[in-house]
Structures are given as structure tokens and as C-alpha cells.
């Protein structure tokens, strides 16, 4: 298969003006990925599927990743202390792993990112391109809260319909049912204590 950089150029050649950037993977696996802009994602996906040299006809894996807002400190010689703190806004990411059954190559990793984690969470659905995205995008919607525009049947898939939260997000707080925790640690210990009357605590905190 062509390198990810070559594939990026191939997309740009056919879709001038599309936002496609390369996301390098610093890990040992070196599976680099393409970040598609939401506006042209559907056309780019069609191209990846139908291009004679690529023919990525098999979308194996679709998943979400939550990247909450975080603070990074960067070197800045002008600032006092030589460092400046900057807030990186959070976003939700959807990752697709594409293979080609016809040509036997892959994977190509494709990602899309939402603008933020609260109100601008719509991304185009790739279910019209690859049918296998149907349930997996529903799962990403359910657990991460990404809304897929153009999905034929976007409902919760794993949790019940009345459920309000998106439990795979990093800031999700699970419901409090720690009434009986005989072997608690850390966070669970704290939450279990709240269920015990003050004098009869389960135990004192074990030494770290």
C-alpha cells in the first residue's frame, strides 16, 4: 500500500480544497493516520473506497476517543519564567480503520474531530460508504456523544434510551452504588465511606 503521505496527496489531487492532514503516531507501531475535515470527509471516504489503487472497501473498526480540555506548558522566552501555560480545547475524535479485501492491504487510519465536546459535536456519518459503520457509529454516539449527520438510524445502542450521559467520556461520574464495599481502595473507599454511619467506618485508610 502507498504511504499515508501519498494517500493524502492522492486525496488532495482529486479534492482540491479538502482539509486532509497527516497525524503521525510516535509509537513503535507507526500507524500514521489522516485527519479529515468534516466538510469533505464523505467525498474523501468515497474516494478511498473507490480509487483503483486503494480500494479500501472494508472498514474494520470505528471508535471514538475523548480528549478533554487540558493545560500544557510551553517554552516561551518572552514570558516570565520562560514558560507559558496554554489551554488546549477539548474535542471528540472518531477513528476509522480501513482495509482492502480486494487488494489485501491496510490498515489506513482515518480520523475526524469535532470542534468541541459540548455543542458542536456533529460529524458526517460514513455509514453510506461502509455499511459496517452503522452499529459502530451508533456506539460512538451512545458512549461518546458524537452526532453523526446522515446516519440512517442514530439511536442509543448499548444503554437504554432514557439514559442521559455519555459514559465513555473521561469526565463521566458513575452512579453511586457503593453501599457494600468490603475491599475498597482509593476512590471507591471514599465513596463507600459516605454510606457508612460516622462511628463505624469500614476501616481506616491503608498506608500508601
Amino acid at each position, binding site marked *: 500500500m502507498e504511504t499515508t503521505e501519498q494517500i493524502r496527496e492522492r486525496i488532495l489531487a482529486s479534492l482540491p480544497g479538502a482539509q486532509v492532514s497527516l497525524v503521525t503516531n510516535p509509537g513503535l507501531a507507526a500507524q500514521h493516520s489522516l485527519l479529515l475535515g468534516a466538510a469533505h470527509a464523505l467525498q474523501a471516504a468515497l474516494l478511498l473506497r473507490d480509487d483503483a489503487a486503494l480500494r479500501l472497501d472494508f472498514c474494520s473498526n470505528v471508535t471514538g476517543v475523548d480528549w478533554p480540555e487540558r493545560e500544557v506548558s510551553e517554552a516561551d522566552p518572552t514570558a516570565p519564567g520562560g514558560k507559558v501555560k496554554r489551554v488546549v480545547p477539548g474535542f471528540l475524535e472518531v477513528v476509522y480503520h480501513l482495509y482492502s479485501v480486494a487488494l489485501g492491504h491496510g490498515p489506513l487510519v482515518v480520523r475526524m474531530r469535532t470542534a468541541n465536546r459540548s455543542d458542536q459535536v456533529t460529524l458526517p456519518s460514513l455509514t453510506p460508504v461502509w455499511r459496517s459503520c452503522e452499529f459502530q457509529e451508533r456506539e460512538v454516539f451512545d458512549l461518546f456523544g458524537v452526532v453523526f449527520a446522515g446516519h440512517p438510524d442514530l439511536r442509543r445502542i448499548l*444503554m*437504554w434510551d*432514557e439514559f*442521559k*450521559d455519555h*459514559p465513555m467520556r473521561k469526565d463521566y461520574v458513575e*452512579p453511586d452504588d457503593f453501599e*457494600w464495599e468490603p475491599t475498597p481502595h482509593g476512590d471507591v473507599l471514599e465513596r463507600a465511606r459516605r454510606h457508612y454511619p460516622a462511628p463505624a467506618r*469500614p*476501616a481506616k485508610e491503608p498506608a500508601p
Partner: protein
Amino acid sequence: MSEPAPAAPAVTDAERAELRRHGMLLTSIEELCDWGRSHSVWPLQFGLACCAIEMIAASMARFDIARFGSEVFRPSPRQADLLIVSGTVTKKMAPMVVRIWNQMPEPKYCIAMGACAISGGPFKQGYNVLKGIDRFVPVDIYVPGCPPRPEALLHGLIKLQEKIRGQRLGTPAPSECPVPEYAAHDLDPTKNPQLWQPPVLVRKEGA
């Protein structure tokens, strides 16, 4: 459950055992009923997760649950005596389990098979996992293990049979359990406090 106070038996257990040794069988309606019930416990064909495979294995040739009179796995709760909760009960599944329990005719028994059914087990940290089916349904026997060997389930069944043989006849209190409902963040209610009251755990140094 209000049980009538047992009247003093006309024949004591020791006398009865002595008679039995001489080949004389004395029985009461109660004993006969319990004997019959304990040897024809029909489980519900109800698999939830991993433990269900071991439950099926227990009903197959190697372990042969038929030797205990319990091979008749009924697909309908109306025909079953025993609910084997074999696997993780999720919060999404819990209302169905309670409803199935309510549909079973009296007398009925429940075995919580495996760590998940008892306490949520390894998955108890999960947001969608019920920490033990005994929060909603009265459980007679807990069979720990992950999953318990089929023999362990048979051992649980033997224990249940012992328990049934110690039962007194009488009108059992109707045990309709309230069915929890799906709510925005969790089940509503999250437990049935009439059934499930965990003790306060007090640890003493060197306990």
C-alpha cells in the same frame, strides 16, 4: 413471611432414624412434599453470560444434572421452580430478570451463580453493572467462582435441595418484587431495601 410455630413432633428425628434403620419408613405430608420438591427442581433456561456456558455444561453428559432431577430446563418462567442467575446482570437487564422472577410460580428458588451475579464480580466497577442480583430478587444460594465449575453449581444445587427439605408447608408470603425502571442516570430505585440490607462492616485490628 409468617410461619406457623411447628407443633412438637409426635416422633422425634432420632426415633425416626432408628425406625428407618429397621426398615420402617415414617413420613409426613410435609416431608413427602419437600422430598418431591427437592428432587424435581426445574430450572429456567436462562443464560446471561459466561456462567451460562458452564450451566449448559452441567446439563450435558459429563456432569449430568439429570441425576438430581433438574435436567428439565424450561424456557418459560411459568413452568420453572429455579432461577439460576448465571452471569452478569446489567442495569439494562435487571428489570427483565425481576419480571421473570415475578412470573415464576411459588414455591420458587434462586441461585446466584458466579461472581457477577452475586456482587457484580470483576465487572462491579462498571457503570452499567448491577452489583448483585440480590438487590432486587431474594437469593437462596450463592455459588462463588468465575465461572464456578459445573461441579460447583451441582454443589449449590445439593445445598438448595437440603434447604428445600427443611422447609415447612404453609402459605408462603407472595414474593412479588417491584420492578426497577430505567432513569436518566441509573435504575430507579437502585435497590430493594426490604430485600437487601448490607451489614456495616467494622474491622478490628488483627481480626
